[in-house]
Protein backbone atom coordinates (compact mmCIF):
# COMPACT_ATOMS: atom_id res chain seq x y z
CA UNK A 1 0.00 0.00 0.00
CA UNK A 2 1.31 3.43 -0.83
CA UNK A 3 0.77 6.26 1.59
CA UNK A 4 0.10 8.81 -1.16
CA UNK A 5 -3.37 7.32 -1.53
CA UNK A 6 -4.19 8.13 2.06
CA UNK A 7 -4.86 11.88 1.76
CA UNK A 8 -2.96 15.12 2.19
CA UNK A 9 -2.81 15.28 5.95
CA UNK A 10 -2.19 11.62 6.56
CA UNK A 11 1.53 11.99 7.27
CA UNK A 12 0.81 14.70 9.85
CA UNK A 13 -1.76 12.44 11.46
CA UNK A 14 0.63 9.49 11.29
CA UNK A 15 3.31 11.26 13.35
CA UNK A 16 0.77 12.67 15.82
CA UNK A 17 -0.78 9.21 16.16
CA UNK A 18 2.53 7.56 17.07
CA UNK A 19 3.35 10.26 19.61
CA UNK A 20 -0.12 10.14 21.17
CA UNK A 21 -0.19 6.36 21.51
CA UNK A 22 3.37 6.22 22.85
CA UNK A 23 2.50 8.78 25.53
CA UNK A 24 -0.65 6.83 26.37
CA UNK A 25 1.36 3.61 26.70
CA UNK A 26 3.86 5.38 28.97
CA UNK A 27 0.99 6.70 31.10
CA UNK A 28 -0.09 3.10 31.64
CA UNK A 29 3.26 2.01 32.96
CA UNK A 30 4.68 5.11 34.67
CA UNK A 31 2.56 4.74 37.85
CA UNK A 32 4.10 1.30 38.35
CA UNK A 33 7.60 2.62 37.77
CA UNK A 34 6.96 5.43 40.22
CA UNK A 35 5.89 2.92 42.90
CA UNK A 36 8.96 0.84 42.21
CA UNK A 37 11.19 3.91 42.53
CA UNK A 38 9.47 4.94 45.78
CA UNK A 39 9.91 1.44 47.23
CA UNK A 40 13.68 1.59 46.67
CA UNK A 41 14.13 5.18 47.86
CA UNK A 42 15.10 6.61 51.24
CA UNK A 43 12.00 7.97 52.95
CA UNK A 44 13.04 11.60 53.38
CA UNK A 45 13.54 12.01 49.62
CA UNK A 46 10.09 10.52 49.10
CA UNK A 47 8.56 12.96 51.59
CA UNK A 48 10.37 15.86 49.90
CA UNK A 49 8.74 14.85 46.60
CA UNK A 50 12.06 14.22 44.90
CA UNK A 51 11.35 10.68 43.72
CA UNK A 52 9.75 10.31 40.32
CA UNK A 53 10.84 7.42 38.11
CA UNK A 54 14.24 6.50 39.55
CA UNK A 55 15.12 5.68 43.17
CA UNK A 56 16.72 8.53 45.13
CA UNK A 57 18.97 7.46 47.99
CA UNK A 58 18.75 3.81 46.91
CA UNK A 59 17.98 1.43 49.78
CA UNK A 60 16.48 -2.02 50.18
CA UNK A 61 15.32 -1.19 53.71
CA UNK A 62 11.59 -1.28 52.85
CA UNK A 63 11.90 -4.73 51.29
CA UNK A 64 14.04 -5.94 54.19
CA UNK A 65 11.42 -4.89 56.72
CA UNK A 66 8.44 -6.04 54.64
CA UNK A 67 10.01 -9.46 54.14
CA UNK A 68 11.02 -9.86 57.77
CA UNK A 69 7.37 -9.62 58.84
CA UNK A 70 6.16 -13.17 59.64
CA UNK A 71 2.62 -12.18 58.56
CA UNK A 72 3.92 -11.59 55.04
CA UNK A 73 5.23 -15.14 54.77
CA UNK A 74 2.14 -16.64 56.42
CA UNK A 75 -0.05 -14.90 53.85
CA UNK A 76 2.36 -15.75 51.05
CA UNK A 77 2.06 -19.43 51.95
CA UNK A 78 -1.78 -19.24 51.92
CA UNK A 79 -1.67 -17.49 48.54
CA UNK A 80 0.63 -20.15 47.10
CA UNK A 81 -1.61 -22.92 48.39
CA UNK A 82 -4.78 -21.41 47.01
CA UNK A 83 -3.13 -20.58 43.70
CA UNK A 84 -1.88 -24.11 43.15
CA UNK A 85 -4.74 -26.16 44.63
CA UNK A 86 -7.35 -23.70 43.38
CA UNK A 87 -5.82 -23.66 39.91
CA UNK A 88 -5.90 -27.45 39.70
CA UNK A 89 -9.49 -27.64 41.00
CA UNK A 90 -10.65 -24.94 38.54
CA UNK A 91 -8.95 -26.75 35.68
CA UNK A 92 -10.39 -30.18 36.55
CA UNK A 93 -13.89 -28.76 36.93
CA UNK A 94 -13.59 -26.91 33.63
CA UNK A 95 -12.45 -30.04 31.77
CA UNK A 96 -15.04 -32.35 33.36
CA UNK A 97 -17.87 -29.96 32.52
CA UNK A 98 -16.67 -28.83 29.10
CA UNK A 99 -16.04 -32.33 27.73
CA UNK A 100 -19.56 -33.73 28.21
CA UNK A 101 -21.05 -30.41 27.07
CA UNK A 102 -19.06 -30.51 23.85
CA UNK A 103 -21.00 -33.65 22.86
CA UNK A 104 -23.79 -33.52 20.36
CA UNK A 105 -27.27 -32.99 21.82
CA UNK A 106 -28.56 -35.92 19.77
CA UNK A 107 -26.15 -38.24 21.56
CA UNK A 108 -26.30 -36.54 24.97
CA UNK A 109 -29.77 -35.01 25.26
CA UNK A 110 -29.28 -34.05 28.94
CA UNK A 111 -26.58 -31.64 27.76
CA UNK A 112 -29.07 -28.78 27.33
CA UNK A 113 -30.35 -29.18 30.86
CA UNK A 114 -26.81 -29.13 32.29
CA UNK A 115 -26.05 -26.09 30.19
CA UNK A 116 -29.04 -24.24 31.55
CA UNK A 117 -27.95 -25.25 35.06
CA UNK A 118 -24.52 -23.64 34.54
CA UNK A 119 -25.89 -20.70 32.54
CA UNK A 120 -28.26 -19.61 35.31
CA UNK A 121 -25.31 -19.18 37.68
CA UNK A 122 -23.81 -16.69 35.23
CA UNK A 123 -26.96 -14.60 35.24
CA UNK A 124 -28.06 -14.65 38.84
CA UNK A 125 -26.42 -15.04 42.20
CA UNK A 126 -27.59 -15.23 45.78
CA UNK A 127 -25.30 -12.34 46.57
CA UNK A 128 -22.91 -11.57 49.38
CA UNK A 129 -24.85 -12.45 52.53
CA UNK A 130 -26.47 -15.80 51.56
CA UNK A 131 -23.19 -17.00 50.02
CA UNK A 132 -21.33 -16.04 53.17
CA UNK A 133 -23.88 -17.91 55.29
CA UNK A 134 -23.58 -21.06 53.14
CA UNK A 135 -19.79 -20.98 53.41
CA UNK A 136 -20.21 -20.46 57.14
CA UNK A 137 -22.64 -23.37 57.61
CA UNK A 138 -20.64 -25.75 55.43
CA UNK A 139 -17.79 -25.26 57.91
CA UNK A 140 -15.28 -23.71 55.52
CA UNK A 141 -14.56 -20.52 57.47
CA UNK A 142 -10.84 -20.19 58.16
CA UNK A 143 -9.94 -23.09 55.87
CA UNK A 144 -8.24 -22.88 52.49
CA UNK A 145 -11.34 -24.50 50.92
CA UNK A 146 -13.40 -21.36 51.54
CA UNK A 147 -11.15 -19.69 48.98
CA UNK A 148 -11.37 -22.58 46.49
CA UNK A 149 -14.73 -24.38 46.52
CA UNK A 150 -17.23 -21.49 46.11
CA UNK A 151 -15.57 -20.42 42.85
CA UNK A 152 -14.47 -23.89 41.73
CA UNK A 153 -16.86 -24.04 38.76
CA UNK A 154 -16.20 -21.03 36.56
CA UNK A 155 -18.71 -20.60 33.74
CA UNK A 156 -16.42 -18.42 31.61
CA UNK A 157 -13.61 -20.97 31.66
CA UNK A 158 -16.17 -23.59 30.67
CA UNK A 159 -17.30 -21.49 27.71
CA UNK A 160 -13.69 -21.08 26.53
CA UNK A 161 -12.87 -24.77 26.90
CA UNK A 162 -16.14 -25.90 25.37
CA UNK A 163 -15.57 -23.82 22.25
CA UNK A 164 -12.13 -25.30 21.92
CA UNK A 165 -13.29 -28.91 22.33
CA UNK A 166 -15.95 -28.36 19.68
CA UNK A 167 -13.35 -27.32 17.12
CA UNK A 168 -11.39 -30.55 17.45
CA UNK A 169 -11.73 -32.89 14.47
CA UNK A 170 -14.19 -35.69 15.20
CA UNK A 171 -12.39 -38.33 13.13
CA UNK A 172 -9.69 -39.33 15.65
CA UNK A 173 -12.32 -39.66 18.34
CA UNK A 174 -14.45 -41.86 16.09
CA UNK A 175 -11.49 -44.10 15.36
CA UNK A 176 -10.91 -44.55 19.10
CA UNK A 177 -14.58 -45.40 19.64
CA UNK A 178 -14.39 -48.11 16.99
CA UNK A 179 -11.40 -49.49 18.88
CA UNK A 180 -13.62 -49.73 21.95
CA UNK A 181 -12.37 -46.72 23.95
CA UNK A 182 -14.61 -45.29 26.68
CA UNK A 183 -15.18 -41.60 27.45
CA UNK A 184 -12.41 -41.45 30.06
CA UNK A 185 -9.90 -42.90 27.60
CA UNK A 186 -11.02 -40.52 24.86
CA UNK A 187 -10.77 -37.54 27.19
CA UNK A 188 -7.36 -38.35 28.68
CA UNK A 189 -5.67 -40.10 25.76
CA UNK A 190 -7.03 -38.16 22.80
CA UNK A 191 -8.72 -34.87 23.67
CA UNK A 192 -6.43 -33.53 26.40
CA UNK A 193 -3.09 -34.23 24.67
CA UNK A 194 -4.14 -32.04 21.74
CA UNK A 195 -5.58 -29.35 24.04
CA UNK A 196 -2.37 -28.41 25.82
CA UNK A 197 -2.49 -24.75 24.75
CA UNK A 198 -6.07 -24.33 26.00
CA UNK A 199 -5.28 -26.13 29.24
CA UNK A 200 -2.28 -23.87 29.79
CA UNK A 201 -4.41 -20.80 29.08
CA UNK A 202 -7.17 -21.76 31.52
CA UNK A 203 -4.66 -22.87 34.19
CA UNK A 204 -2.88 -19.54 33.87
CA UNK A 205 -6.09 -17.48 34.09
CA UNK A 206 -7.30 -19.55 37.05
CA UNK A 207 -4.02 -19.11 38.91
CA UNK A 208 -3.85 -15.38 38.24
CA UNK A 209 -7.45 -15.09 39.43
CA UNK A 210 -6.59 -16.90 42.66
CA UNK A 211 -3.46 -14.85 43.25
CA UNK A 212 -5.40 -11.61 42.76
CA UNK A 213 -8.47 -12.54 44.86
CA UNK A 214 -8.68 -10.59 48.08
CA UNK A 215 -12.36 -10.22 49.03
CA UNK A 216 -13.01 -13.87 49.90
CA UNK A 217 -9.90 -13.84 52.10
CA UNK A 218 -11.27 -10.81 53.88
CA UNK A 219 -14.66 -12.31 54.76
CA UNK A 220 -13.85 -16.05 55.02
CA UNK A 221 -10.51 -15.95 56.88
CA UNK A 222 -11.25 -14.91 60.41
CA UNK A 223 -7.75 -15.58 61.74
CA UNK A 224 -5.29 -13.05 60.37
CA UNK A 225 -2.75 -15.82 59.74
CA UNK A 226 -5.21 -17.48 57.28
CA UNK A 227 -5.43 -14.44 54.99
CA UNK A 228 -3.96 -14.64 51.49
CA UNK A 229 -1.36 -12.07 50.44
CA UNK A 230 -3.79 -9.90 48.47
CA UNK A 231 -6.01 -9.56 51.55
CA UNK A 232 -2.97 -8.77 53.68
CA UNK A 233 -2.08 -5.97 51.26
CA UNK A 234 -5.69 -4.77 51.26
CA UNK A 235 -5.58 -4.42 55.04
CA UNK A 236 -2.46 -2.27 54.72
CA UNK A 237 -4.00 0.19 52.21
CA UNK A 238 -5.27 2.47 54.94
CA UNK A 239 -3.02 1.39 57.83
CA UNK A 240 -0.07 3.21 59.34
CA UNK A 241 2.20 0.51 57.99
CA UNK A 242 5.51 1.80 59.30
CA UNK A 243 4.32 2.02 62.89
CA UNK A 244 2.62 -1.35 62.70
CA UNK A 245 5.70 -3.03 61.28
CA UNK A 246 7.94 -1.50 63.91
CA UNK A 247 6.28 -3.80 66.43
CA UNK A 248 7.15 -6.96 64.51
CA UNK A 249 10.62 -5.89 63.60
CA UNK A 250 13.70 -7.88 64.60
CA UNK A 251 15.91 -5.85 66.96
CA UNK A 252 18.90 -5.75 64.61
CA UNK A 253 16.74 -4.10 61.96
CA UNK A 254 15.77 -1.07 64.05
CA UNK A 255 18.31 1.18 62.34
CA UNK A 256 16.40 0.73 59.05
CA UNK A 257 13.50 2.70 60.49
CA UNK A 258 15.08 6.02 59.61
CA UNK A 259 15.30 4.96 55.95
CA UNK A 260 11.67 4.09 55.38
CA UNK A 261 8.12 5.29 56.02
CA UNK A 262 4.60 4.05 55.40
CA UNK A 263 4.72 5.02 51.74
CA UNK A 264 7.95 3.22 50.91
CA UNK A 265 6.87 0.13 52.85
CA UNK A 266 3.47 0.00 51.22
CA UNK A 267 5.04 0.52 47.81
CA UNK A 268 7.35 -2.42 48.45
CA UNK A 269 4.45 -4.69 49.46
CA UNK A 270 2.38 -3.54 46.45
CA UNK A 271 5.26 -4.39 44.18
CA UNK A 272 5.85 -7.78 45.82
CA UNK A 273 2.17 -8.57 45.20
CA UNK A 274 2.38 -7.52 41.57
CA UNK A 275 5.67 -9.29 40.88
CA UNK A 276 4.31 -12.82 40.18
CA UNK A 277 1.74 -11.36 37.77
CA UNK A 278 4.40 -9.31 35.99
CA UNK A 279 6.54 -12.45 35.74
CA UNK A 280 3.83 -14.48 34.00
CA UNK A 281 2.59 -11.48 32.00
CA UNK A 282 4.36 -12.42 28.75
CA UNK A 283 2.44 -15.74 28.74
CA UNK A 284 -0.78 -14.08 29.82
CA UNK A 285 -0.62 -11.57 27.01
CA UNK A 286 0.06 -14.26 24.45
CA UNK A 287 -2.86 -16.45 25.47
CA UNK A 288 -5.28 -13.83 26.65
CA UNK A 289 -5.81 -12.20 23.29
CA UNK A 290 -6.64 -15.61 21.81
CA UNK A 291 -8.91 -16.69 24.63
CA UNK A 292 -10.79 -13.42 24.80
CA UNK A 293 -11.37 -13.22 21.08
CA UNK A 294 -12.45 -16.84 21.01
CA UNK A 295 -14.83 -16.34 23.91
CA UNK A 296 -16.52 -13.17 22.82
CA UNK A 297 -16.54 -12.88 19.06
CA UNK A 298 -17.76 -16.31 18.18
CA UNK A 299 -21.25 -16.87 16.82
Amino acid at each position, binding site marked *: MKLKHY*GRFYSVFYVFNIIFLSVLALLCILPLINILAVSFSTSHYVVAGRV*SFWPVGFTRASYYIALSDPRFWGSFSISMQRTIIGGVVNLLMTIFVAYPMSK*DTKYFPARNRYMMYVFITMMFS*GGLVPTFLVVHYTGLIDTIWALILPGAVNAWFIVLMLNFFRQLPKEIEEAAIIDGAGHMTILFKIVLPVSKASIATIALFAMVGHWNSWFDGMIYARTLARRPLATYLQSLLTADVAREMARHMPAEAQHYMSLLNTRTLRAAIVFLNALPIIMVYPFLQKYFAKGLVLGSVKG
Partner: protein
Amino acid sequence: MEKRPKRRRKSTTYGMSTIPLHLMLLPAVILLFIYRYLPMGGLVIAFQNFDITMGIRAFWESEWVGFDNFMRIFGDDAFTRALRNTLTIAIGKMITMYFFPIIIALMLNEIRISALKRGIQTLVYLPFFLSWVILAGIIRDILGMDGIVNTLFFSQNPRFFLGDPSLFQPMLIITNIWREFGYATIVYLAAITSVDPEQYEAAMVDGATRLRQTWHVTLPGMRPIIVLTGVLSLGGILNAGFDQVFNLYSVPVRATGDIIDTLVFRTAMVGGQFHVGTAIGLFNSAVGFLLIITANGLAKKFAGYQVF
Protein backbone atom coordinates in the same frame (compact mmCIF):
# COMPACT_ATOMS: atom_id res chain seq x y z
CA MET B 1 -39.07 -26.55 24.13
CA GLU B 2 -38.37 -27.61 20.62
CA LYS B 3 -39.12 -31.17 19.62
CA ARG B 4 -36.10 -33.38 19.22
CA PRO B 5 -36.05 -35.55 16.12
CA LYS B 6 -36.47 -39.23 16.93
CA ARG B 7 -33.96 -40.63 14.49
CA ARG B 8 -30.43 -41.25 15.70
CA ARG B 9 -27.44 -39.86 13.90
CA LYS B 10 -25.52 -42.66 12.31
CA SER B 11 -21.76 -42.54 12.94
CA THR B 12 -19.80 -40.94 15.83
CA THR B 13 -21.00 -42.32 19.13
CA TYR B 14 -22.79 -45.58 18.31
CA GLY B 15 -24.52 -46.92 21.37
CA MET B 16 -22.01 -45.65 23.94
CA SER B 17 -23.43 -45.16 27.39
CA THR B 18 -23.77 -41.54 28.53
CA ILE B 19 -23.40 -42.50 32.20
CA PRO B 20 -19.66 -41.59 32.30
CA LEU B 21 -20.62 -38.12 31.04
CA HIS B 22 -23.12 -37.68 33.87
CA LEU B 23 -20.48 -38.85 36.36
CA MET B 24 -17.97 -36.31 35.03
CA LEU B 25 -20.52 -33.55 35.54
CA LEU B 26 -21.53 -34.71 39.01
CA PRO B 27 -18.86 -32.89 41.13
CA ALA B 28 -19.55 -29.60 39.36
CA VAL B 29 -23.31 -30.07 39.72
CA ILE B 30 -22.90 -30.64 43.46
CA LEU B 31 -20.55 -27.67 43.95
CA LEU B 32 -22.80 -25.36 41.97
CA PHE B 33 -25.79 -26.58 43.95
CA ILE B 34 -24.14 -25.88 47.29
CA TYR B 35 -22.33 -22.61 46.55
CA ARG B 36 -24.52 -21.07 43.86
CA TYR B 37 -28.04 -22.47 44.22
CA LEU B 38 -28.29 -22.78 48.00
CA PRO B 39 -27.42 -19.05 48.37
CA MET B 40 -30.29 -18.29 45.98
CA GLY B 41 -32.53 -20.14 48.41
CA GLY B 42 -30.88 -18.22 51.22
CA LEU B 43 -32.35 -15.05 49.74
CA VAL B 44 -35.47 -15.81 51.81
CA ILE B 45 -33.82 -13.92 54.66
CA ALA B 46 -34.55 -10.72 52.76
CA PHE B 47 -38.18 -11.34 53.78
CA GLN B 48 -37.37 -12.19 57.39
CA ASN B 49 -36.27 -10.57 60.58
CA PHE B 50 -33.28 -12.91 60.41
CA ASP B 51 -31.85 -13.89 63.77
CA ILE B 52 -28.37 -15.33 63.27
CA THR B 53 -28.12 -16.45 66.90
CA MET B 54 -30.67 -19.19 66.16
CA GLY B 55 -28.10 -21.03 64.08
CA ILE B 56 -29.20 -22.74 60.88
CA ARG B 57 -32.84 -22.92 62.09
CA ALA B 58 -32.95 -19.15 61.59
CA PHE B 59 -33.60 -19.73 57.89
CA TRP B 60 -37.06 -21.14 58.51
CA GLU B 61 -37.86 -20.13 62.08
CA SER B 62 -37.08 -16.39 61.87
CA GLU B 63 -40.04 -14.04 61.89
CA TRP B 64 -41.44 -13.43 58.38
CA VAL B 65 -41.88 -9.75 57.68
CA GLY B 66 -42.92 -9.71 54.03
CA PHE B 67 -41.58 -6.68 52.20
CA ASP B 68 -40.78 -4.69 55.36
CA ASN B 69 -37.01 -4.81 54.76
CA PHE B 70 -37.51 -3.47 51.24
CA MET B 71 -39.83 -0.71 52.44
CA ARG B 72 -37.16 0.23 54.96
CA ILE B 73 -34.35 0.47 52.43
CA PHE B 74 -36.41 2.37 49.85
CA GLY B 75 -37.13 4.98 52.53
CA ASP B 76 -33.49 5.19 53.52
CA ASP B 77 -31.42 8.12 52.24
CA ALA B 78 -28.23 6.04 52.28
CA PHE B 79 -29.83 3.60 49.80
CA THR B 80 -31.13 6.31 47.48
CA ARG B 81 -27.72 7.95 47.53
CA ALA B 82 -25.96 4.65 46.82
CA LEU B 83 -28.35 3.89 43.96
CA ARG B 84 -27.79 7.33 42.43
CA ASN B 85 -24.00 7.02 42.76
CA THR B 86 -24.06 3.50 41.32
CA LEU B 87 -25.96 4.66 38.23
CA THR B 88 -23.78 7.75 37.71
CA ILE B 89 -20.50 5.87 38.09
CA ALA B 90 -21.58 2.84 36.06
CA ILE B 91 -22.99 4.93 33.20
CA GLY B 92 -19.89 7.14 33.21
CA LYS B 93 -17.71 4.06 32.92
CA MET B 94 -19.97 2.53 30.30
CA ILE B 95 -19.84 5.54 28.00
CA THR B 96 -16.09 6.14 28.33
CA MET B 97 -15.30 2.46 27.96
CA TYR B 98 -17.51 2.30 24.89
CA PHE B 99 -15.89 5.00 22.77
CA PHE B 100 -12.33 5.16 24.03
CA PRO B 101 -11.27 1.58 23.14
CA ILE B 102 -12.80 1.79 19.65
CA ILE B 103 -10.89 5.00 18.92
CA ILE B 104 -7.65 3.62 20.33
CA ALA B 105 -8.04 0.40 18.34
CA LEU B 106 -8.50 2.41 15.13
CA MET B 107 -5.43 4.50 15.99
CA LEU B 108 -3.34 1.43 16.85
CA ASN B 109 -4.32 -0.06 13.52
CA GLU B 110 -2.68 2.89 11.74
CA ILE B 111 0.77 2.11 13.17
CA ARG B 112 2.75 0.35 10.47
CA ILE B 113 5.88 -0.30 12.58
CA SER B 114 4.89 -3.64 14.06
CA ALA B 115 7.51 -3.65 16.84
CA LEU B 116 6.22 -0.28 18.08
CA LYS B 117 2.62 -1.46 17.85
CA ARG B 118 3.42 -4.61 19.84
CA GLY B 119 5.35 -2.59 22.41
CA ILE B 120 2.45 -0.21 22.94
CA GLN B 121 0.00 -3.10 23.22
CA THR B 122 2.20 -4.83 25.81
CA LEU B 123 2.19 -1.74 28.01
CA VAL B 124 -1.50 -0.86 27.72
CA TYR B 125 -2.75 -4.40 28.49
CA LEU B 126 -0.68 -4.75 31.66
CA PRO B 127 -2.83 -2.87 34.24
CA PHE B 128 -5.78 -5.14 33.46
CA PHE B 129 -4.02 -8.14 34.96
CA LEU B 130 -3.32 -6.44 38.28
CA SER B 131 -6.09 -6.60 40.87
CA TRP B 132 -7.80 -3.47 42.16
CA VAL B 133 -6.03 -3.98 45.49
CA ILE B 134 -2.63 -3.62 43.85
CA LEU B 135 -3.86 -0.79 41.63
CA ALA B 136 -5.44 0.96 44.62
CA GLY B 137 -2.09 0.73 46.40
CA ILE B 138 -0.54 2.47 43.42
CA ILE B 139 -3.34 5.00 42.85
CA ARG B 140 -3.57 5.98 46.51
CA ASP B 141 0.14 6.69 46.48
CA ILE B 142 0.42 8.65 43.22
CA LEU B 143 -2.77 10.65 43.89
CA GLY B 144 -1.95 11.30 47.55
CA MET B 145 -1.22 14.79 48.86
CA ASP B 146 2.55 14.26 48.51
CA GLY B 147 2.22 11.78 45.61
CA ILE B 148 3.86 12.22 42.24
CA VAL B 149 0.83 13.76 40.50
CA ASN B 150 0.71 16.58 43.03
CA THR B 151 4.49 17.11 43.19
CA LEU B 152 4.79 17.21 39.40
CA PHE B 153 1.69 19.16 38.42
CA PHE B 154 0.05 20.78 41.43
CA SER B 155 2.97 21.58 43.73
CA GLN B 156 1.58 25.10 44.43
CA ASN B 157 -1.80 23.93 45.71
CA PRO B 158 -1.94 20.13 46.00
CA ARG B 159 -5.33 18.50 45.42
CA PHE B 160 -6.81 15.80 47.60
CA PHE B 161 -7.97 13.72 44.61
CA LEU B 162 -9.38 10.75 46.51
CA GLY B 163 -10.63 12.71 49.51
CA ASP B 164 -12.64 15.34 47.65
CA PRO B 165 -16.28 14.29 47.00
CA SER B 166 -16.45 16.38 43.82
CA LEU B 167 -13.36 14.69 42.36
CA PHE B 168 -14.00 11.13 43.46
CA GLN B 169 -16.33 9.99 40.67
CA PRO B 170 -14.11 11.39 37.88
CA MET B 171 -11.15 9.65 39.55
CA LEU B 172 -13.04 6.34 39.48
CA ILE B 173 -13.87 6.75 35.81
CA ILE B 174 -10.32 7.77 34.86
CA THR B 175 -8.61 4.99 36.83
CA ASN B 176 -11.10 2.53 35.36
CA ILE B 177 -10.12 3.64 31.86
CA TRP B 178 -6.46 3.27 32.85
CA ARG B 179 -6.97 -0.33 33.91
CA GLU B 180 -9.34 -1.56 31.23
CA PHE B 181 -9.12 0.33 27.94
CA GLY B 182 -6.13 -1.64 26.67
CA TYR B 183 -7.76 -4.98 27.20
CA ALA B 184 -11.00 -3.69 25.68
CA THR B 185 -9.19 -2.83 22.43
CA ILE B 186 -8.32 -6.50 21.84
CA VAL B 187 -11.70 -7.51 20.45
CA TYR B 188 -11.83 -4.44 18.20
CA LEU B 189 -8.34 -5.08 16.86
CA ALA B 190 -9.38 -8.64 16.07
CA ALA B 191 -12.45 -7.30 14.25
CA ILE B 192 -10.31 -4.85 12.24
CA THR B 193 -7.93 -7.58 11.04
CA SER B 194 -10.90 -9.60 9.81
CA VAL B 195 -11.92 -6.85 7.36
CA ASP B 196 -11.33 -7.98 3.78
CA PRO B 197 -8.21 -6.16 2.39
CA GLU B 198 -9.78 -6.06 -1.08
CA GLN B 199 -12.32 -3.58 0.22
CA TYR B 200 -9.53 -1.13 1.04
CA GLU B 201 -8.01 -1.60 -2.38
CA ALA B 202 -11.39 -0.96 -3.99
CA ALA B 203 -11.81 2.16 -1.88
CA MET B 204 -8.35 3.38 -2.86
CA VAL B 205 -9.09 2.86 -6.52
CA ASP B 206 -12.10 5.11 -5.95
CA GLY B 207 -9.70 7.69 -4.49
CA ALA B 208 -10.82 7.44 -0.86
CA THR B 209 -8.52 9.03 1.72
CA ARG B 210 -7.51 7.01 4.78
CA LEU B 211 -10.14 8.82 6.84
CA ARG B 212 -12.88 7.91 4.38
CA GLN B 213 -11.58 4.33 4.24
CA THR B 214 -11.87 4.16 8.02
CA TRP B 215 -15.38 5.54 7.89
CA HIS B 216 -16.66 3.50 4.95
CA VAL B 217 -14.70 0.24 5.26
CA THR B 218 -13.17 -0.30 8.72
CA LEU B 219 -16.08 0.90 10.85
CA PRO B 220 -18.77 -0.98 8.90
CA GLY B 221 -16.54 -4.07 9.20
CA MET B 222 -16.45 -3.60 12.97
CA ARG B 223 -20.18 -2.94 13.21
CA PRO B 224 -21.28 -6.34 14.55
CA ILE B 225 -18.80 -6.26 17.42
CA ILE B 226 -19.49 -2.59 18.18
CA VAL B 227 -23.21 -3.32 18.41
CA LEU B 228 -22.56 -6.42 20.49
CA THR B 229 -20.29 -4.80 23.10
CA GLY B 230 -22.66 -1.84 23.33
CA VAL B 231 -25.69 -4.01 23.92
CA LEU B 232 -23.94 -6.32 26.38
CA SER B 233 -22.59 -3.38 28.40
CA LEU B 234 -26.22 -2.44 29.20
CA GLY B 235 -26.24 -5.40 31.57
CA GLY B 236 -23.76 -3.61 33.80
CA ILE B 237 -25.75 -0.46 34.61
CA LEU B 238 -25.97 -1.44 38.28
CA ASN B 239 -22.37 -2.62 38.46
CA ALA B 240 -20.21 0.31 39.49
CA GLY B 241 -17.26 -1.93 40.37
CA PHE B 242 -17.10 -3.02 44.02
CA ASP B 243 -13.39 -3.89 44.05
CA GLN B 244 -12.36 -0.50 42.75
CA VAL B 245 -14.66 1.62 44.90
CA PHE B 246 -14.08 -0.39 48.08
CA ASN B 247 -10.31 -0.01 47.85
CA LEU B 248 -10.33 3.68 46.91
CA TYR B 249 -13.14 5.23 48.92
CA SER B 250 -13.11 6.65 52.41
CA VAL B 251 -15.60 8.26 54.79
CA PRO B 252 -15.16 11.84 53.41
CA VAL B 253 -16.19 10.78 49.87
CA ARG B 254 -19.16 8.57 50.77
CA ALA B 255 -21.60 11.23 49.52
CA THR B 256 -20.46 10.58 45.94
CA GLY B 257 -18.56 7.31 46.31
CA ASP B 258 -20.84 4.97 48.23
CA ILE B 259 -22.38 2.44 45.84
CA ILE B 260 -24.95 -0.32 46.39
CA ASP B 261 -22.34 -3.06 46.75
CA THR B 262 -20.31 -1.18 49.35
CA LEU B 263 -23.53 -0.31 51.20
CA VAL B 264 -24.50 -4.02 51.26
CA PHE B 265 -21.06 -4.88 52.61
CA ARG B 266 -21.19 -2.31 55.40
CA THR B 267 -24.80 -3.05 56.34
CA ALA B 268 -24.32 -6.82 56.52
CA MET B 269 -20.69 -7.65 57.21
CA VAL B 270 -19.82 -4.64 59.36
CA GLY B 271 -23.21 -3.72 60.81
CA GLY B 272 -24.42 -7.32 61.18
CA GLN B 273 -27.88 -6.53 59.68
CA PHE B 274 -27.93 -9.59 57.45
CA HIS B 275 -31.58 -9.32 56.37
CA VAL B 276 -31.30 -5.65 55.36
CA GLY B 277 -28.05 -6.30 53.48
CA THR B 278 -29.67 -9.25 51.72
CA ALA B 279 -32.70 -7.18 50.75
CA ILE B 280 -30.49 -4.52 49.15
CA GLY B 281 -28.46 -7.26 47.47
CA LEU B 282 -31.59 -8.99 46.18
CA PHE B 283 -32.92 -5.75 44.71
CA ASN B 284 -29.56 -5.31 43.00
CA SER B 285 -29.37 -8.89 41.65
CA ALA B 286 -32.99 -8.89 40.50
CA VAL B 287 -32.65 -5.66 38.52
CA GLY B 288 -29.20 -6.76 37.31
CA PHE B 289 -30.68 -10.09 36.18
CA LEU B 290 -33.41 -8.36 34.17
CA LEU B 291 -30.82 -6.05 32.61
CA ILE B 292 -28.51 -8.92 31.64
CA ILE B 293 -31.37 -11.02 30.25
CA THR B 294 -32.55 -8.01 28.22
CA ALA B 295 -29.02 -7.27 27.04
CA ASN B 296 -28.43 -10.88 26.04
CA GLY B 297 -31.80 -11.02 24.30
CA LEU B 298 -31.00 -7.87 22.33
CA ALA B 299 -27.50 -9.18 21.58
CA LYS B 300 -28.98 -12.39 20.21
CA LYS B 301 -31.50 -10.47 18.13
CA PHE B 302 -29.12 -7.86 16.68
CA ALA B 303 -25.80 -9.70 16.59
CA GLY B 304 -26.69 -13.38 16.74
CA TYR B 305 -24.78 -13.67 20.02
CA GLN B 306 -25.10 -16.63 22.35
CA VAL B 307 -22.91 -17.44 25.32
CA PHE B 308 -23.01 -21.21 24.77
